[in-house]
C-alpha cells in the first residue's frame, strides 16, 4: 500500500502533529508491506523537505510555489489534487488539524473519494484496513472502513500516535523530488490577512479592585452611559447581572454570577440589582458592597455593607459629579 502523508507548517514552524501522522503511516505501511511518502507545500520549504528526508520514507514531494506561501483552501486543494494524481497513492493521511478540517474534505470531494476524519487508531484485518474513530464524545468507538477504490483519505487526531516513534531513514536521506503544480492567482478565491491571536477577554473582572455593576433597574440600554460615567469617575470596571447581558446591552464577559464570573473586588457598587442568589454567589466575596435600589425589600440589602434606598437615576449623576469634584 502506497501512503502519502500531507504535513503542515506555519510561519517557519512544524505542526508537530505532522510527525505523529508520519509515525502512523510508517506503522500502517509496516503492517501492510507498503511505502510512505511525505509531502510539504509552501514557499521556501527546502529546510522542511530536507528534515522530512531524514525519516524512513520512500520520497519527499516538495511543492514549492509562490502562491502557496500562505495557506488557502483553494491553493492547497488545487495543488494537492495534482500531487495525488501524479503520485497515485492508495491512502492519503493528514494530521487532524483545524487547517486540515478546512480543506481535506474539499480535496477528497474534488477527487470524488471518501474521507474518514479524526481517527484515533487503525487495525489491519486480513489486509482490510479498519479505521477507529470516537463517537459520543469518546464514550464509544466505531470501526469504519472504505468502500470503493482509492485513493482513500483519513486524518488522525492529535495525540493518537507518538511523534517520537517516527523512524529515521536507514541509509541517510530519502530523495526529495520537486513537484511543480499548475496554480494561478485567479484560482484562489480567498486572501489571507495577517495572523492574529484572538484576545481571550477584553476585561478581566476578577482582577478589578473596583466594580460598578448594573441590574434590571437600569431599565434601558440608553441609560448605561450614566452608570459608565460613575464607573469612570471611580476608575472602576463596569459589570452587570444576567438580564443585562442576556439582552445584549453589555457583553457576556461582563456578567457576574453563577453563569458568569465570580469576583471579589475591594468595592462593589450594585446599581439597581435586586440580588437574586444567582448574582450574589458571584460577588458576595467583595470586601465592601454598596447597593442602591428603590425597593427596600430587595435581597441585595441583606448582604450590602451600605445600602441606599433610592432612585439610581437621581443618584448616578449626583454621584458622578461628587466623585469628579472630590478628585479635582
Amino acid at each position, binding site marked *: 500500500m502506497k501512503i502519502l502523508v500531507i504535513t503542515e507548517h506555519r510561519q517557519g514552524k512544524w505542526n508537530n502533529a505532522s510527525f505523529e501522522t508520519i509515525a502512523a503511516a510508517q506503522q500502517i505501511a509496516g503492517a501492510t508491506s507498503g511505502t510512505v511518502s511525505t509531502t510539504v507545500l509552501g514557499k521556501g520549504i527546502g529546510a522542511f523537505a530536507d528534515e522530512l528526508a531524514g525519516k524512513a520514507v520512500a520520497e519527499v514531494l516538495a511543492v514549492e510555489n509562490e502562491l502557496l506561501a500562505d495557506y488557502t483552501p483553494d491553493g492547497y486543494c488545487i495543488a494537492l489534487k495534482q500531487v495525488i494524481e501524479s503520485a497515485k497513492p492508495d491512502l492519503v493521511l493528514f494530521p487532524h488539524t483545524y487547517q486540515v478540517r478546512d480543506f481535506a474534505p474539499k480535496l477528497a470531494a474534488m477527487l470524488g473519494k471518501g474521507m474518514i476524519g479524526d481517527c484515533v487508531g487503525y487495525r489491519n484485518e486480513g489486509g482490510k484496513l479498519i479505521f477507529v474513530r470516537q*463517537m459520543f464524545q469518546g464514550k464509544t468507538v466505531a470501526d469504519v472502513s472504505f468502500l470503493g477504490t482509492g485513493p482513500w483519505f483519513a486524518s488522525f487526531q492529535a495525540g493518537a500516535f507518538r511523534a517520537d516513534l517516527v523512524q529515521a531513514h536507514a541509509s541517510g536521506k530519502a530523495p526529495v523530488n520537486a513537484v511543480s503544480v499548475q496554480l494561478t492567482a485567479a484560482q484562489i478565491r480567498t486572501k489571507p490577512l495577517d495572523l492574529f491571536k484572538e484576545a481571550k477577554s477584553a476585561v478581566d473582572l476578577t482582577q478589578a479592585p473596583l466594580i460598578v455593576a448594573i441590574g434590571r433597574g437600569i431599565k434601558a440600554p440608553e441609560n448605561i452611559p450614566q452608570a459608565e460615567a460613575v464607573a469612570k469617575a471611580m476608575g472602576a470596571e463596569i459589570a452587570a447581572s444576567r438580564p443585562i447581558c442576556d439582552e445584549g446591552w453589555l457583553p457576556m464577559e461582563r456578567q457576574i454570577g453563577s453563569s458568569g464570573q465570580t469576583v471579589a473586588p475591594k468595592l462593589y457598587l450594585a446599581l439597581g440589582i435586586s440580588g437574586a442568589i444567582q448574582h450574589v454567589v458571584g460577588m458576595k466575596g467583595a470586601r465592601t458592597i454598596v447597593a442602591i435600589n428603590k425597593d427596600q425589600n430587595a435581597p441585595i440589602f441583606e448582604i450590602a455593607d451600605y445600602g441606599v434606598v433610592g432612585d439610581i437615576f437621581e443618584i448616578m449623576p449626583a454621584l458622578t459629579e461628587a466623585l469628579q469634584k472630590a478628585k479635582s
Partner: protein
Amino acid sequence: MTVQREQLEADVLIVGAGPAGLACALHLANLIKAHNASGAKPELSPENTYVLEKGRELGAHQLSGAIMNPKALAELVPDFEKSAPLDTPVTDSAALFFTQNNSFRIPITPPPFVNTGNYVVSLSKLVKWLGEKVEAAGVNIFKEFGGAQLIYERDGIGGVITEDKGIDKNGKPKDNFQPGYELKAKVTVLAEGTRGSLTKELVAKKKFDNINPQSYGIGIKELWDVQPGKIQPGYVAHTLGWPVPPSMYGGGWIYGLSNNRVSIGLVIALEYTDPRFDPHATFQKWKTNPFVKNLLEGGKLVRYGAKSLPYGGWYAMPRNYFDGGLIVGDSGSFLDSQRLKGIHLAMKSGMLAAETTFEALKSGDTSAKMLSAYQTKIEQSYIKKELWKVRNFHQGFSHGQFRGFINTAFQQISGGRGLIDPMPAHAGHEAYKKSDGQPAAPRFAGDGKLTFDRLTDVYHSGTRHEEDQPCHLHVADLNICATKCVEEYRNPCQYFCPAAVYEMVKDGAGQKLKINFANCVHCKTCDIADPYQIINWVVPEGGGGPNYEGM
C-alpha cells in the same frame, strides 16, 4: 443547513435513562445473557442496546417524592436489598388535614395513603445505582445525549436523531459544532418520562391517543436537612386541605429520610381555572402551616426541583406498541393516579417491553403485530390490575374535591367502575377561565429562610444550560403571547412555571414574552398548561438541565 449525520445501528435503542428505560435495558441484557448461555440461536449481544440520557449524569433529571413499592425491583434484581440505595422503609403513614394554622391527623389513614412495605427513596440515587448495573451488563449508556427527532419508518419509528451540539443562539454552528447522530434501531423504546417530547409528537402524528387525553399534575419538591429529632426516618405524611382550595385537586407530602433529611412537596393537578394560580407560591405558603414550619425550623434547604406527572391512567394510555417501537413508563401513562405511584409500574412496563423486544429480536420481526405482545403482557400483569381499579379516579375530581370523594366512594364499592365508566376527561388547559381584568397580586417573595422566591429555588436545583444555544422552548407565535394572551388569560406561563423561565417584559407601550430558558428544570409544565398549546418543549443541548442529585 443540511448536515451529514453519522449513522449507527443498534438492535435496541432506549430513549431515557429513568426507572422504566433502565429496567428495560437491564432486563433485556439479562434475558440475552441467559439466551446466549443456553446456546440458542441467533446469538444476541447486550452491547447492541443503546440508552440515551439528556442529563449530565445518571439520575440528574430524576425527581419523585419518592415512595417506592419494591415489587418490580424485586423481580428485576432479586437481591436488591443488599445493594440498592433504599434509604429507609416506611414506618408510619399519616394522612393530615391542614388549615392555615392547624393540622389534624385523620384517625384512620385511608388505604391509598398507607405505605407499609414500601421504601422512602431518592429516585435520583436509585436510578444511578440501576444505571451502574445496566452498564456492568454491557449496555452502552450515552449521557448528555437527548433524542431530538424521530426517524419514521413503516407505520412507526426506526430510531432517533440525537440533538445537534455546538449551535449558537442564532442557530449557526460554532467551532465545536457536532451534528447529532442518526441512531437506527430494530426496536426503539421511548422512555422519556412525563410528557416526552418525541412521544408527544409520535402519538399526535399517528393518532395513538386513547379515549381520554392525558391529565397532568405538577409536583414541586424541596429537600431539607432538619434539626435532629424533628422527624423519624420512614415517617410519611400526606396532607389534604390548605392551601389547596377545595375546587382544586392537590396535596402535600412529608417524607422522613435517614440522617435528618426530609423530602417535602406539593402536587397540584394542572387543570385549575385561575390562570394566575401559582403552584410554586402555593407550595411556599403550605410550608408556613405550623406543622411544616416547626419541622423545618433551624433546617436548611438542600435542593429544589419540579416535575410534571401523568394522572390520566388507563383510559389515557396511548397505544404503546407500533412498528419498530414501544412506549414505557410515564411517557406511556404507567402511573397510579390515586396513590400517585409510578416507579414500580414504570419499571414493570420497562421489563415487559424488554421481554417483548427480546422475542422480537429472536424472531427477526419487529412489526407492530409482533410487538403487540407488549399490550397483552400489560393486560395480564399487575399493571392492568392496579390501573384498572383506579381508571376513573382522577376524572372524578374534575369538579373539585367534594364531588371527587363521592365519586371515589362509588368507585371503591364497584371495583373502579363508579357512576360513569369510562368517565371522560378534558385536557387541563381547557379549564382556565378568562381574565376578570383584576390587577395581579404581587409576586410571592419569600422570607429567605422558610420560604423562597422562584429564582432562589431554581438556584438550588443546580440547573445549568449552555447559554449560547437556541432556546429549547419553541413558541409557535409570540404575537399570541403579546396580544391575545395578555387580554384573555394574562399570560399564565409567568405563574405556572416553577423555574421563572417565562416573563412578560415591557416592549414599548405593550409587553412581550422573554424566555429565560437557561432556568428550565425540564418539568414540561409549559408544554402542558399553556392555554393555546403553542409552547413546544424540545431537548436542549445534552447535559443541560437540573442536577437532582439526592432528589
